[in-house]
């Protein structure tokens, strides 16, 4: 008993650790969190998958064994106890009971008392013993069944759980017959030592299937790797759908799947799997577990941010695939990682690429803020340069209204654990990016700066003498040249380097004024060259100029020479299915039923024993129970009163 309790305490502590420490995360996350030293220590203890460690499972097995022995040892005695009336109790022992009373009467007829016992629901046995008659009675013996039921139930549940655990796999791993795969391989490349046959007794694995594809394996995540579990059939995904409530929350996740015969490749069964409604086929349960992108085709407009033309070029790609991007000096690879047809989250949220459909969380009344709305599709990609460096981008397809003006947003980050930082590209009155891109081209093109400066001077001081005009034009050209080198940052560096501290503020204001007015002229020029209507002299244009200058400044920090604008897409979704085979399930549920039965018979059937020892001139009344409760005291008092009344002939 003490041993069992210590083991249970260890299990409870281990379980608590398992809930506090996130289980089965990628090992890299743990290293970041704990550092190398503790990571190794915790790994040695198996804390990253605590419920499947050798020691945890061993303790469970020992508990099952000790509980079984306990039942085996106590069962015969329990049954004997249940049957026995203890009619051999002696007068001596009865007098020592805590609940005992004696009545002085003469010649009492036992029938009166047995009738009473009958009415009270007691079973009894009479035994004549020399000078006295003993009536030994009992009630609620089924209480003992409670003990047997609960303890057998725990054994059954544990056995069921052990059947469904990965013990055979653990053994195979220990002997080196099977090995987890840690490399990122295509499924067909995974060697046989990391593959489990379709006959495997029990498993629980996941697979992601894009629309229009099929899978005949699932992946079991183990430690920092995985194994491939083969299936006796193939599953094809025809379509994955999400239904929404009018408020935007998800209402249904559903996968239209087809079970396909592996040998003949013929469809056997078509079924729609939804959350809470799995399909059970061939002893394998198929659950809707998650969803994600299955390789959406994207058509993009690429904008070279540093060229002078202001024209876009076409780029195509698919999610989970890569495209090449060649610029003048270096080769880039675009790794498309995710596509979302709609976004209702706040900007800047870190995003998961697979979404759990089983989470209970959305029922929360608070998490759903009302000011959130759908801001349209977005896609995510990494841009990797030839030297292997990569930055991650998240671009929205539709313009967003921020501060009452329209922008296209592109988020950039250096590492996955950082939030995205967004660059805003302003849109021209036609709500396209072209106006900005042409302006940007002119602003970065030094050969055009003199012309822009001339136009600026002509409009700013039309009546000034020529030498004043020339001087201003030179200054304007200079400002434009500096801005073209690195945006506002270059400009401020220039001011700090060349101008005495006292004059800096004035100089900065003058330069900004020149820059803005010159940029306006550049905008007029580029619009005219593109045969677009001339910009109006109004606030809207003023803001467009300022936003454009900000954006041009920002592209020097954008980290990529190209902005990819999503033109259109052909969505392909993928469903994440969980497949389990758990032969222990019914044993566990049987055990559970037994447990409930046992718990209730333990608490609600009270075992009571009652003796009446009848002598010539007295009746000795004693009671006992294996549970000393207030109810029992009350019952004794009631019987004592009743029996007193009977023997006294009232």
């Amino acid at each position, binding site marked *: 008993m003490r041993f069992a309790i210590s083991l*249970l305490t260890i299990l*409870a502590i281990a*379980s*608590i650790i*398992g*809930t*506090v420490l*996130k*289980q089965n995360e990628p090992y890299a996350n743990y290293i970041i969190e704990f550092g190398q030293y503790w990571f190794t220590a915790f790994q040695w203890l198996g804390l990253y998958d605590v*419920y499947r460690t050798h020691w945890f499972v061993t303790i469970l097995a020992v508990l099952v064994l000790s509980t079984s022995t306990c039942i085996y040892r106590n069962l015969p005695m329990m049954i004997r106890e249940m049957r026995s009336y203890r009619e051999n109790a002696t007068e001596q022992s009865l007098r020592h009971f805590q609940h005992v009373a004696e009545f002085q009467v003469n010649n009492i007829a036992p029938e009166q008392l047995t*009738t*009473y016992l*009958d*009415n*009270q629901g007691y079973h009894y046995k009479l035994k004549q013993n020399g000078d006295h008659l003993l009536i030994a009675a009992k009630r609620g013996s089924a209480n003992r069944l409670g003990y047997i039921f609960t303890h057998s139930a725990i054994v059954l549940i544990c056995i069921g*759980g052990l059947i*469904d655990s990965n013990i055979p796999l653990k053994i195979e791993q220990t002997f080196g017959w099977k090995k987890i795969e840690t490399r990122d391989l295509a499924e067909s490349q995974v060697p046989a030592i990391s593959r489990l046959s379709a006959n495997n007794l029990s498993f*629980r694995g996941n697979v992601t299937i894009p629309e229009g594809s099929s899978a005949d394996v699932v992946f079991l995540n183990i430690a920092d790797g995985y194994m491939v579990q083969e299936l006796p059939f193939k599953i094809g995904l025809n379509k994955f759908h999400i239904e929404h*409530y009018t*408020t935007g*929350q*998800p*209402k249904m996740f559903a996968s239209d799947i087809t079970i396909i015969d592996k040998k003949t490749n013929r469809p056997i069964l078509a079924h729609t799997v*939804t*959350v*809470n*409604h799995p399909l059970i086929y061939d002893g394998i349960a198929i*659950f809707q*577990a998650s969803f994600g992108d299955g390789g959406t085709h994207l058509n993009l407009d690429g904008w070279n941010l540093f060229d002078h033309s202001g024209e876009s070029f076409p780029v195509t790609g698919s999610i989970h695939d890569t495209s090449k991007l060649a610029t003048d000096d270096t080769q880039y690879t675009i790794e498309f990682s995710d596509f979302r047809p709609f976004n209702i989250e706040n900007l800047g949220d870190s995003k998961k690429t697979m979404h*759990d*459909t*089983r*989470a*209970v*969380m*959305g*029922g*929360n*009344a*608070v998490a759903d803020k009302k000011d959130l709305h759908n801001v349209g599709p977005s896609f995510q990609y990494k841009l990797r340069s030839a030297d292997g460096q990569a930055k991650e981008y998240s671009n929205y397809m539709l313009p967003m209204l921020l501060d009452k003006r329209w922008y296209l947003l592109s988020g950039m980050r250096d590492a996955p654990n950082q939030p995205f930082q967004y660059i805003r590209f302003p849109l021209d009155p036609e709500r396209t990016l072209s106006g900005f891109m042409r302006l940007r081209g002119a602003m970065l093109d030094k050969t055009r700066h003199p012309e822009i400066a001339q136009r600026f001077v002509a409009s700013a001081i039309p009546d000034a003498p020529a030498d004043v005009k020339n001087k201003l034009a030179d200054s304007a050209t200079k400002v434009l040249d500096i801005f073209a080198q690195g945006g506002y940052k270059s400009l401020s560096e220039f001011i700090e380097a060349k101008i005495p501290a006292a004059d800096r503020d004035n100089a900065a204001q003058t330069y900004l004024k020149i820059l803005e007015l010159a940029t306006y002229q550049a905008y007029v020029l580029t619009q005219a060259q593109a045969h677009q209507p001339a910009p109006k002299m109004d606030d809207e244009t003023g803001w467009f100029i300022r936003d454009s200058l900000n954006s041009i400044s920002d592209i020097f920090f954008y980290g990529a020479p190209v902005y990819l604008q999503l033109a259109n897409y052909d969505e392909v979704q993928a469903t994440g299915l*969980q497949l*389990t085979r*758990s032969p222990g*399930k019914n044993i*566990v*549920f049987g055990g*559970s039923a037994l*447990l*409930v039965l046992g*718990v*209730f018979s*333990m*608490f609600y059937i009270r075992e009571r024993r009652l003796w009446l020892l009848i002598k010539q001139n007295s009746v000795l009344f004693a009671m006992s129970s294996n549970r000393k*409760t*207030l*109810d029992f005291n009350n019952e004794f008092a009631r019987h004592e009163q*009743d029996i007193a*009344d*009977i023997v006294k002939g*009232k």
Partner: protein
Amino acid sequence: MQLTQTMPRPSLLKQLSPIDWLFSLALWTGAAYALSLYGNNMDVYEKGFLFGAAAVFSVLGWLWKPIRTLLVIIAALSLFGIYDYHADLARANQAFFLKYILASQSAIMWMSVLFVLATLTYWISLASRSDFVAKVGTALTWSALTMGLVGLLVRWYESYLISPDVGHIPISNLYEVFILFSIITALLYLHYENRYQNRQMGAFVLPVISAAVGFLLWYTFDRQAQNIQPLVPALQSYWMKIHVPANFIGYGSFSLAAMIGVAYLLASKGILASRLPKLEVLDDVMYKSIAVGFGFFTIATILGALWAAEAWGGYWSWDPKETWALIVWLNYAAWLHIRLVKGLRGPMLAWWAVIGLFVTVFAFLGVNMFLSGLHSYGTL
């Protein structure tokens, strides 16, 4: 000779009065009428639950007569509330009875106020040793839980008024289950109060309900949690209808036992001892409450496993919520073992029951707030 001694004790069915039968008949008729109205929209499990509820409440009403009155009153009030809506949700702020009494928000506010009043009343009665004031406390508690139940039932209907696909039983988020917790704990308390003919324990049990009410009010006014939200796919299951209430009978019982434990500890040190019931009575209530809670918590956890087998792909995945349910279960299993097998009594068990409440609260709230897992009501 007294009749009780010679006659066999009559079975429950033979003890029933015509009113009992009438009550039961009304329940079954109601269930049949509901089936005729909405049967087309119910699956076989839901039909089972409908008549199962009729059976359960029949027996409850037979065993504990005040349940009959309670059910009749909440049926009348909530049906009137539903009728008064005229299928138009906007009437919640227009129609007099809805606006001030019967719309779910109003009813729940009434419940909150009444529970707090009941708490105060029980303490006044404890201080003044007034039996009359204690009776007022009991009446207030009954009224509070009546309003709470009416609030939940009307809310159930309101969810369908928002949109038929939004409609669901109001036990799906933290806000709603806190109401359920208050109601169930109050009902359990009233049962013990009646059974032990002792109203002093109310001063200890009602504060835990008031604390829940306090949370509820903060949650309403600070976080606007009272709005009805549609069910996410994972919650769209008939299992929710039994898993959640079974769990809250467990949580309610454990909380009640802990509060009685507090009373026990005070009384054993002589504080309020003359005003509280005898130690052995407190001990008995504590034990009974934990036994009931343990039974229902066992059922709830098993129902949770059955549900998980359908929704999460496995009956046991060591999700933090599951693991903590196991820890709570082991904790009370140990408590009961020590008491029943080793025969331990006294302050130690009372302390343990109080500490048990903290474990339970962590399993109920802490897991959702601090640990990540599938079973989360989200952050506060």
